[in-house]
């Protein structure tokens, strides 16, 4: 393996986990996420000379983001045509058979994950980048190709929606506890 291959192993490979998690959240399935990470990794190899000084993880996530967006445009255009600031997305409701107290925690986690999955991709990506990757607004803005102000308004909207769905879940759990 030549110099570039070694640089790739050093700089890019440690962040393949973050790349996969990000692509997985955006595509919502393992198989497509794997294809995207492979494509993005090859693009990263091609652009590797340009990686200077910036942090490798946000840099790679930017490439993954572009790769995923092209993929979504080709394969699931309907997900992207809905304008992200129009109508509110559907929040999944708790299932009618209320969970056992001991299972409530697990059920909560499952419903929270479903609620994140239900967010439109432009909201989902800022939540994943902020909460799971712990990136700064500025880095998220660069990765998603949007102004910082838009990062802020999308984060606020995404959290508001998730907060609502958590309240719905808690109300269901309270009813369970009161019985």
């Amino acid at each position, binding site marked *: *393996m*030549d110099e*570039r*291959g070694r640089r*790739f*192993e050093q700089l890019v*490979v440690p962040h*393949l*986990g973050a790349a*996969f*998690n990000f692509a*997985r*959240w955006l595509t919502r399935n*393992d198989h497509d*996420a*794997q294809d995207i*990470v*492979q494509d993005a*990794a*090859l*693009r990263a*190899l*091609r*652009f*590797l*000379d*340009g990686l200077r000084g*910036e942090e490798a993880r946000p*840099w790679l996530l*930017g490439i993954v983001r*572009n*790769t995923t967006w092209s993929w979504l445009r080709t394969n699931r255009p309907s997900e992207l045509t809905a304008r992200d600031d129009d109508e509110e997305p559907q929040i999944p409701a708790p299932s009618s058979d209320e969970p056992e107290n001991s299972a409530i925690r697990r059920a*909560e986690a499952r419903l*929270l*994950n479903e609620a*994140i999955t239900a967010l439109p991709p432009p909201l989902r990506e800022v*939540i*994943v980048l*902020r*909460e*799971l990757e712990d990136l700064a*607004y*500025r880095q998220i*803005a*660069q990765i998603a*190709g*949007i*102004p*910082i*102000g*838009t*990062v*802020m*308004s999308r*984060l*606020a909207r995404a*959290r508001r929606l*998730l*907060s609502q769905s*958590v309240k719905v879940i808690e109300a269901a759990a309270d009813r369970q506890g009161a019985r």
Partner: protein
Amino acid sequence: MTRDDELRLHAYLDGELGATESVEFERRLADDAQLRQGLAELRTIGERIRGQARYHECPPRLRDQVLARVRREQPRRRERFVWWWSSLAATASLTALAAWFAPALIQQAAGWEPRVDQVLDDHLGAQLGAHWVDVASSDRHTVKPWLSSRLGFSPAVPDLSDQGFELIGGRVDVLDARPVATLVYQRRQHMISVFVWPGGAGVARGATERRGYHMIRFAAAGFSYWIVSDLNENELRDLARLLSSPS
């Protein structure tokens, strides 16, 4: 709660408010029960997301597959590399750009135009985060090379202090997936973002007002401009005139 306050809550919790804004906001939090409740709710949902959202583990097989493909790619690299650079050289203005933007830029069509709401959002984001500039300097000979080294184009950075517009510095912004230069001027207490990017032949001068901010669009000397500020429209038009006239 106003929209700005809502965004400030998030920025505060995310550690994204500027130092002065942060102190100011804490003072307001102490006085405002509604803000405090908003903060508590946000904390709860934030902890819930970070604690419960799934981090999808990378299948070990994927790592191996990527490495295998990278190794296969090596022998063909030189050939591909030459092709890549020659195609880039055809569009000379692109070659100097940082790789950050290279994937997005190659997809760019001519006649690019950012959406107006993106332009305003960027100005508001800078204001809320109190992050006006990446390079703070009133010296245009500092700001101009800083911008051109990062962007691959070199916008005019005129000194307009005699005309009452003080240069604060510059930043690089991303609007609709494309990097632009942003010059920041100040007049009295009003901050002004001047967005600049190459191109703009045939752009008509226009002005609009959104959410109390004045915005002016024009082109001059091969560059496109958007100016955004809460300064009054007349004075903003003066700035547009000064930026359009050759110095």
